[in-house]
């Protein structure tokens, strides 16, 4: 991680808290119906209609190798956008926009989650526990 982001958007997945740099987040949406795409990779939940724009919905639980969401769950989505594209990330619950204390950032080598190391750009301590920062660019690279 170069410089830690000033503001992050937090969300939960399987009771763990994750975060994304707000700079890469375009919008946060409540549950929307997703049009599934037959024979698509597991990662892809389907397509969403965001006011006429068709955006691919990616299940972050699958991307991070977490257990699947219960079938009746209604995931929210965090829409991230970079120059290479727009993707909707399905998350269990969106949290807040937070400004982590610059001193709260942990060195990346000490992270407990090794196998998802590629996607994780950093981590910071909060009273509630360690929050993992995901890398938008890496997430999008996963989708191309």
């Amino acid at each position, binding site marked *: 991680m170069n410089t830690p982001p000033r503001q992050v958007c937090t969300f939960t997945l399987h009771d763990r808290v994750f975060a994304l740099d707000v700079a890469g987040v375009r919008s946060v949406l409540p549950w929307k119906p997703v*049009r599934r795409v037959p024979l698509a990779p597991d990662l892809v939940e389907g397509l969403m209609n965001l006011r006429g724009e068709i955006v*691919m919905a990616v299940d972050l639980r699958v991307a991070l190798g977490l257990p699947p969401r219960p079938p009746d769950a209604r995931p929210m989505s965090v829409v991230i956008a970079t120059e290479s594209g727009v993707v909707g990330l399905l998350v269990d619950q969106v949290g807040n926009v937070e400004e982590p204390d610059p001193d709260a950032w942990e060195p990346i080598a000490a992270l407990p989650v090794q196998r998802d190391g590629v996607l994780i750009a950093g981590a910071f301590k909060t009273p509630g526990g360690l929050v993992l920062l995901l890398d938008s660019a890496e997430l999008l690279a996963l989708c191309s």
Partner: protein
Amino acid sequence: MVQHDAIVKEFLQESLESIAQLEARILDLEDPSAGASSVDAIFRSVHSIKGVANHLEYLHLGALAHAGESLLSDLRDQRRVADVEVVDALLALVDGLRARLQTIAESGVDAGQDLGGLIHRLKDLRVPSGDETWAPVPQAEGPPDAQAPEPLSPEDVSPEAGEPASERTIATRVRVDVEVLTSVMNLVGELVLARNRLRQVSLRLGNDTMLDGVGRLDRITTELQDAVMSTRMQPVGTLWDRLPRMVRTAARTTGKQVRVHLEGGDTELDRTLIEAITDPLSHMVRNAVVHGLELPEERMRWGKPAEGTIALSAHHESGQVVIELRDDGGGLPVDSIRRRAVERGIWTEDKARTASDEQVWYLIFSPGFSTADQVTELAGRGVGMDVVRTHVEHIGGSVDVHSESGEGTTFRIRIPLTLAIISALVITCDGERFALPQDALKKLLVVRRSEAQEQLEDFHGVQVMRFEGGLLPIVCLDEVLQLDCSDDQDEEEQGDLFIIVVEARGRRYGLVADAIEDTQEIVVKSLDPLLRNLGLYTGATTLGDGSIALILDVMGLARAADIVATSDAIGLAMAAAEPAAEVAEEALLLTEVGGRRIAIPVAQIQRLEVIPAEQLEWGGSQHVVQFERDLLPMFSLAELLGLDGGGDWAGALQVVIARCGPHRVGLVVDEILDITHQAVDLKREGGGAGLRGSTVLDGRVTDLVDLALLLRGPVFKADPVSA
């Protein structure tokens, strides 16, 4: 990316555009008939680049332009002849300018490759004269300093100075960012969808005032759509510009003499399509030089001029753009293709012997098939025409080939005018909706589920069905896409199965769906690579109710269902088998015309429209209407069938837009009644011009029209109108 002042940005853009046209003009210099106008034009472009470059203190760039300009002035004053050496140097000048401009665009700095060598090369070609006024060449990487190339005269600063008035008519044009156009296009797409939805609702409500309003909205939307589309159009000529030089290089490397003939460069095409077609077309043109044309000696032996011709033309044809590439070489080597097909295991000896020449031609589109005996650096790397075909088909186009031994080869590429909005049939399978591009659609058949098993046969493990005297491979959409079949058994046994006969790369198959909704204009949205690479969908679209439908890739489905090989095997087996007559159900549009019931096969219909009579124009001896950038010939179906009534051409006309071969026509009917699915059992065959016969549908005698037959005469006559 470096921030530029608007003026720098404009300079870079204009300069890059103007040098894009230089290559063709430079090549013209080699043609003595082209005259001096090319030299003048080249001189002006280079001169204005020099002027502004110096003004903006891009001194290396300015020095290069100056060296070029000096050589050009020798040419202009006829002190020097444009020989091969000069032309080569001028082409190098274009490359040098382009590279420098691009470097400036990317880094904002006038630096990069040393231009000294090129400048000296240009200088050395000049006619030595007494008053040598060479500007000192700045050190390539050194900072621009007091040794500026030459004092700027006021004339140099203004790019317009010294140009004829005809080049200054720019005031009516506005430069628009492509991004802005794309977003306007997207909004119009949304409007089309909103219109579709409103139309659905208003038809259900049936309120006249509302229908009127919606009708008006409908027309405005269509016009707006056309207008916006036209902003995305670019002349194919932008593509032509780069070809002559490529031909020249290829001709030189292979020792051939080639004349390039370009036509129809002002034919317009969606810019994204121009981009998509650039590489395949370049490849084909190179192929034509390297493989198509013979060496000069050989041509002389055949009594042909030593110089071969490569002709490229473009024109509009029924909502498509046709690009034709013709060479007057030896034609495709049919015998050696046959031999190679056997060697590569693509065909059996038997097949190679019995196949028609036409089948042989199409082999060149097979993967890994290269006809050249010798692999050269220019073409023939074994990734030739199959890649071309894949590219063209990816944008919804097709490639045809025709060859005459000793006379040459003609390739014909057909591409849609635009990709953004297409006409598609919406179908349902296991509760999910899909869109099927209308272009691929050949016929709609309806089969009772209970009878489906009897109609379907097994052919080497693939389900086939008898159809029009042949066997049609059947692909079940739910199987190939592995959709859930949660329906219980009872439901499976009832209702109808819809078999949509589609065609991909000349192979037909039947696609089975649960239901057919209707034909709509859909706005094509591209998919992320992850989904695109599945090869099953060409895009997605939002429907009137806001739901998303995937657009099916007809060829991709055939590949996924593994029926491509089967379809070829059937072709062989059928050659021997006897034709079978089976009556399958067909989707028919019922209309009322002159008091009679007339049924038209839905597969021949493109869409239904209401067109106010005021929009009719009189072209030649024919009613026409402007429709989607085409002139659509209009006919009264009553008149064509020799019936009374109809044909008063007043009020809101109910029009069936039909396709008849490559043509589109509008047929005016009194009333559009319904779409029905019927096994047509003709009670009486024939019965007048253009009728397949009569039958009883829903208790009423109905005449079944054969549009191909009916329109053969009139469309031929009307052709000059659409030309």
